[in-house]
């Protein structure tokens, strides 16, 4: 019954959409012209996109193309970014097509995967990090795949001995501060000083991934005394925002705010140089190296895939030199493959975090609710 209804609706929708398509092209073209002041370029863009869009509209799914070639779907979060055509060499080598679908942040990605466990949205998942890893493992989201590429990955990044997930990249959440403006902290300890706390903006651990990572950093640093640390931060007047954007763009100096210390990433100073306008030679910000909590992002073969072998090959490719070298400038994290060098900008403007803070995924999952409930009581009252 539902199947029939759904089919009828899809047909109806397709009909409506086809009727609308011509209209869409006309509208789009005129709007683009108005918007971009470059009629020629806009026209060309519209036409190419129009053709692509039509194909995509009709493609519908696609992992079951019958022409002998297999399409593997990579499910990921909204922050996944690569250079164009990054999978071309993989397809040329293996004959496997890759389709990337993304939606939501890392937390939503894991929730989706857990809800869809057994009937996955795709074949490979990329983007679960160590703070959510245990939930995904408990939810039987992945099946084991031991990648031969692991030989090039440092042991401390491999958190699942059963190889259900494979480490792909490494990033650190660190406290950032503006060089030469406001109080200059030298250590995570300094922040509880009211002068520093009042200039500090961080994110709510329940709604923000870096916010949660910084809470974990304080727990890893101070053990049971983390509550005292946060009590002092709160008394000193620390500001809490819902997410990273509100902190960095709303409250922090870089975005026009008044705060000079912010919870962000170890690579934020690098992005400050690369995306500066006008261009700058050195980063205006620096990181507190002893405040950095390590986030490792993993990929894994989704349990229930029809193509486990091909899915495994894609995981291997994610650790290949081609893909790993593409990671830093697109996602602003470091490659997990130790044989791949960092780009110059990262070496020049980035800070190597030699001893990042960590907690085991099992410990994080077991205490997540208790820690954040306590944090809420202390900081938000």
């Amino acid at each position, binding site marked *: 019954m539902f199947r029939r209804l759904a089919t009828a609706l899809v047909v109806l929708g397709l009909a409506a959409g086809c009727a609308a398509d011509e209209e869409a092209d006309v509208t789009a073209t005129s709007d683009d012209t108005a918007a971009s002041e470059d009629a020629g370029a*806009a026209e060309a863009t*519209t036409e190419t996109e129009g053709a692509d869009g039509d194909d995509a*509209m009709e493609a519908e799914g696609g992992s079951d193309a019958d022409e002998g070639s297999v399409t593997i779907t990579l499910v990921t979060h909204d922050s996944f970014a690569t250079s164009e055509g990054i999978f071309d060499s993989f397809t040329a080598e293996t004959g496997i097509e890759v389709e990337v679908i993304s939606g939501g942040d890392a937390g939503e990605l894991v929730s989706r995967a857990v809800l869809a466990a057994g009937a996955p*949205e*795709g074949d490979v998942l990329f983007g679960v990090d160590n703070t959510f890893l245990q939930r995904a493992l408990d939810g039987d989201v992945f099946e084991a795949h031991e990648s031969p590429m692991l030989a090039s990955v440092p042991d401390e990044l491999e958190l699942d001995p059963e190889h259900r997930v494979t480490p792909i990249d490494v990033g650190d959440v660190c406290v950032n501060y503006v060089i030469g403006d406001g109080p200059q902290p030298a250590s995570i300890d300094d922040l509880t000083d009211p002068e520093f706390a009042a200039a500090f903006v961080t994110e709510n651990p329940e709604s923000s991934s870096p916010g949660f990572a910084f809470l974990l950093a304080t727990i890893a640093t101070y053990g049971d005394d983390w509550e005292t640390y946060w009590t002092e931060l709160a008394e000193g007047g620390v500001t809490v925002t819902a997410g990273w954007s509100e902190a960095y763009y709303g409250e922090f100096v870089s975005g*026009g705010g008044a705060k000079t210390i912010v919870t962000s990433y170890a690579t934020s100073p690098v992005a*400050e140089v690369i995306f500066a306008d006008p261009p700058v030679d050195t980063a205006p910000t620096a990181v507190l190296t002893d405040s950095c909590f390590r986030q490792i992002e993993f990929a894994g073969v989704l349990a229930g895939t029809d193509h486990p072998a091909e899915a495994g090959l894609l995981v291997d490719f994610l650790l290949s030199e081609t893909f790993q070298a593409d990671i830093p400038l697109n996602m602003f994290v470091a490659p997990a493959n130790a044989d791949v060098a960092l780009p110059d900008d990262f070496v020049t403007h980035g800070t190597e975090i030699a001893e990042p803070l960590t907690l085991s995924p099992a410990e994080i999952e077991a205490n997540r609710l208790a820690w954040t409930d306590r944090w809420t009581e202390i900081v938000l009252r």
Partner: protein
Amino acid sequence: MNLAGAVRRRSARASVGVGLLGLAPATFLGVFVVWPLVAILARNLADVGWRQAFDVVTSDATRSILTFTVGQALASTALTLVLGGLVAHTLASWRFPGRAVLRAFSVVPFVLPTVVVAAAFDSVLPTGLGAVLAAHVFFNLAVVVRVVGGFWATLDRRPLEAARVLGASPWQAFRTVTLPRLAPAVASAGVVVFLFCFTSFGVILILGGPTRATLETEIYRRAVFRGEFDIAAVLAVVQVVAVVVLAALSSWLQRRAAVPDRGAATPPRVRGASARLQVAGAVAVVAVVQGVPVASLIARSLRTGDGWGLANYRRLTEPVQLLPVTAAEALVTSLRFAVAAAVIAAVLGGLAALAITTGGRLGRGLEALALVPLGVSAVTLGFGYLVAFAAFDLRRSLWLVPCAHAVVGFPFVLASLVPARRAIDPRLRAAAATLGASPITVARTVDWPLLRRPLATGAGFAAAISIGEFGATSFLARGASGFTAPLAIFRLLSQPGDLLRGQAMALSVVVGLVVGVLALVLERSRSANGVAGSAL
């Protein structure tokens, strides 16, 4: 066989036919609302006992969240109705230069991403209830201006003038003559605004401050951060029950208040000091509530590394490392989805409006059901799609996106169309039928000319809903060919750097501009249309 009997039989047959038309929208809502909700709630409530559900619902935390959710939504709705009503009244009463621009501009905020708008509010107002209310009025003013204003313009002005001639004060005349006739449109716009604020997410999270929570933010926090799918599901049931009760209440109110009206001519040109003052007041409301934040956004978009200029706009057509397509291409994708969503919402909403106003149980059910997607949390519905559509792999179909947008746009079509159709004097239709017109001819010659404009308003909102990516679609995974402008703005704001921020602001302005221009074009095409234009 007498003539009256024949007419009755014919119209009875016609209403059965119209009732059947309701099957298509009922099926659509069944597939895209009821089924996913049942699927996700059944899955996540499976292990929840009555005792546990009762404890969650009656806990102090839930009670305080419910109180704040309903309280802020009521306050936001009241404010929006008063300020929007003021603007709607002026637009319905007078013609003045810039009237079309004012109407069109009111829609612009509707499609601006919350993250971007919040920054503008954040710099003026401290986080808290005040900022939340201001932002809700900013976003929703257009709903009242267009739904109530559009309806107001069609009211017969003669009873009001008669009351004034007979000595009623302006306020008395408004209260006793105009307000009762406006009630269906006010109720209809009010419910939509209320539900929008009831399920408000980004505004609460960003502007409410870290201690404020609504049912919507709480369901998200429970489901996504804490992984407590069961508690989230219990709260989602509370939300669904609240929405269905509200929808039933609003439908009853509207049916009771509906009065047939005869339609008015174009309002007179503005004259006299008090009329000019009214116009100035309406312009001031829009300028302060909506104009200031938009102006600050435009200013940010023009800010470049070496001063001011259009560099951020020029960069929209260039590839950026962080985006799978250029910002301009993402905008085109948004527009394609918007057209598809608007067509689906207009066709199915139009059929539903016919079924609802013809009466019958299906119609009443549709009216309540249509509001559910507006009042149910996006995460619940989004995860519902994931679970429900797993069997057919509809999950990855790009068609799911405009369909999910149309589900949210649907109530706007109804809000605009249902009061308008109820206001058509049934005697007009009866007279046409008596004179031998077939039901189709009646629909074409009586209903269509009077309903075209409200339908366009509703479809416009559905398109805006789609461009703004409201609702559950942010929980659906999609490929680069489904990458839209709001996703591009979000992505641009995910790394530090003035270059990225400038582009995000410029793209937001372009999205708003496109919607404003579309609204203006619709506006123009209507007033250019001689006979129908004057009849509306």
